[in-house]
């Protein structure tokens, strides 16, 4: 109950501040939209279903792309952390490859897949894959040695060792990295959707910008934040809670 109250207070204050700033008219409303302008935009967007469609399309893309990134990133990360050759060669490139803006991958995506969903998925995957890989590698490397030793000592080998020991032992790292990967995936998706208009929130954002419709821009921001909030709550927060419960990272009394 108290938690809910605190949340209500926080968001009320936030919106109040926004409304106040908008009311003061320091900036004209098409530069600094009012909450009610944005609310109206959201209302229209939802009532003509265009926002629902945009959300459905973008969520589908980001979820598929992200899921592939997570699986592939984990495998890659494990490879990099356990294979000396890969570590020396790929390992040093992970951070820098991850620094490449998504737009760099777009020509390649077009070349390989043409203008379609796959190209967008490719950009999303390239945007988040190496982030997950990095997290996995770091998790694997910075995991206390004792877990690996205990696992091997008890007979775990190869995939078993990975699945039953290395993965759970580095889960605290991985969960942290997964969040970053999620953010990367969204950003890449929006970039891709802005390059090639094919529904999705990126399109709404682009069009809002193209038509100088700040209400729409803010509406999309709110939608992205809202979706992130839900996913964070459903996936990451609950993973963290489980982790903290198991590992005893919260007070138990």
């Amino acid at each position, binding site marked *: 109950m108290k938690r809910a109250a605190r949340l209500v207070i926080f968001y009320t204050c936030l919106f109040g501040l926004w409304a106040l700033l908008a009311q003061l008219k320091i900036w004209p409303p098409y530069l600094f939209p009012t909450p009610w302008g944005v609310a109206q935009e959201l209302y229209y967007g939802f009532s003509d279903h265009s926002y629902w469609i945009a959300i459905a399309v973008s969520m589908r893309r980001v979820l598929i792309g992200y899921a592939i990134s997570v699986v592939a990133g984990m495998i890659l990360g494990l490879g990099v952390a356990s294979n000396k050759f890969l570590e020396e060669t790929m390992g040093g490139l992970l951070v820098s490859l991850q620094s490449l803006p998504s737009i760099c991958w777009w020509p390649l995506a077009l070349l390989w897949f043409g203008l379609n969903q796959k190209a967008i998925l490719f950009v999303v995957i390239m945007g988040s894959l190496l982030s997950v890989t990095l997290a996995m590698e770091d998790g694997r490397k910075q995991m206390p040695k004792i877990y690996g030793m*205990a696992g091997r000592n008890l007979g775990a080998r190869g995939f078993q060792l990975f699945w039953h020991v290395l993965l759970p032992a580095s889960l605290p790292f991985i969960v942290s990295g997964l969040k970053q990967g999620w953010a990367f995936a969204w950003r890449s998706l929006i970039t891709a959707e802005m390059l090639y208009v094919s529904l999705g929130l990126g399109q709404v954002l682009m069009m809002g910008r193209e038509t100088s419709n700040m209400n729409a821009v803010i509406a999309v921001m709110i939608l992205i934040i809202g979706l992130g909030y839900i996913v964070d709550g459903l996936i990451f927060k609950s993973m963290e809670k489980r982790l903290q419960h198991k*590992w005893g990272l919260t007070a138990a009394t």
Partner: protein
Amino acid sequence: MSSNIQNAAAPIVIPGHRSPARVAGPRSKFGPASIGHTLGHVSPEIAKVGLSEICLSYRTHGGERLLALDHINLQVRPGEFLCVVGPSGCGKSTLLHLIAGLHPQTSGQILVDGRPVEGPGPDRILIFQELGLFPWLTVGENVEFGMKMKGVSKAEREEKTRYYLRLVHLWQFKKSYTHQLSGGMRQRVALARALATEPDVLLMDEPFAALDAQTRDLLHDELERIWAETGRTIIFVTHNVREAIRLGDRVVLLTFRPGRVKREFSIDLPRPRVLEDVHVAHAARAILDELREEINRSLEVEYSVGVKPHLAPGAEQ
């Protein structure tokens, strides 16, 4: 009394000098070598675990190397209960890690069943001094872990988990996570986990150090029973000399850094033995005397470069 303990062979190995193991060394004042089996005759062929000329050095700060184990020679018979004692930091844990195949030795050879050790194997399970329980698993799952890796069926796993958790009095806690246990309880989980895997060779690194006297006594009995019933080979590290005598067929005393085999004692007391027994106490004294020598040596090393803080005269135990 003196017939109960036997100093079988304690070749004082000179650093760098390759002395064959098991040649007759200086005899302990506690008795003739004739009593009990002659340890010197465990040939490497029939040994369950054979260490020859094992050295291990660690890298330390500033690129120096610290010699932890120095030309260790040791043959363990199949079904033997070998206890290893020595001053703190002498290399006991390191020795068990090597046998478990968790690091490679710097030089020398370790044979298990005549084959060189090349990594960990399900035939040798170590109870780590740091325990190494998995915090993401419940107590029950921790105990099951080794069996799962071996591919034991679910039903059997459950049965054994129950059996061994009962054995260490923690069945009620099977669904707890390790952070919810006390220090002694964790140690018992690690014990159950290792026992449940039922390895040929059990390597135990101070497995009872955090237990109260009564619980430890109960577990001594259980361990001895399991050992007797299954014929497992046990290498048991402890800092408690009485515990070593209570359990071991033979006690090996390591020297202070670098760890060498200072002396071996064959324990011929009839089983079951009792920790508080006068015979055990008497036997312990001999080993403790040797141990004291080592500690004094360690103090010399420690204080050779500065002022010695006030130290009370060595106590009696």
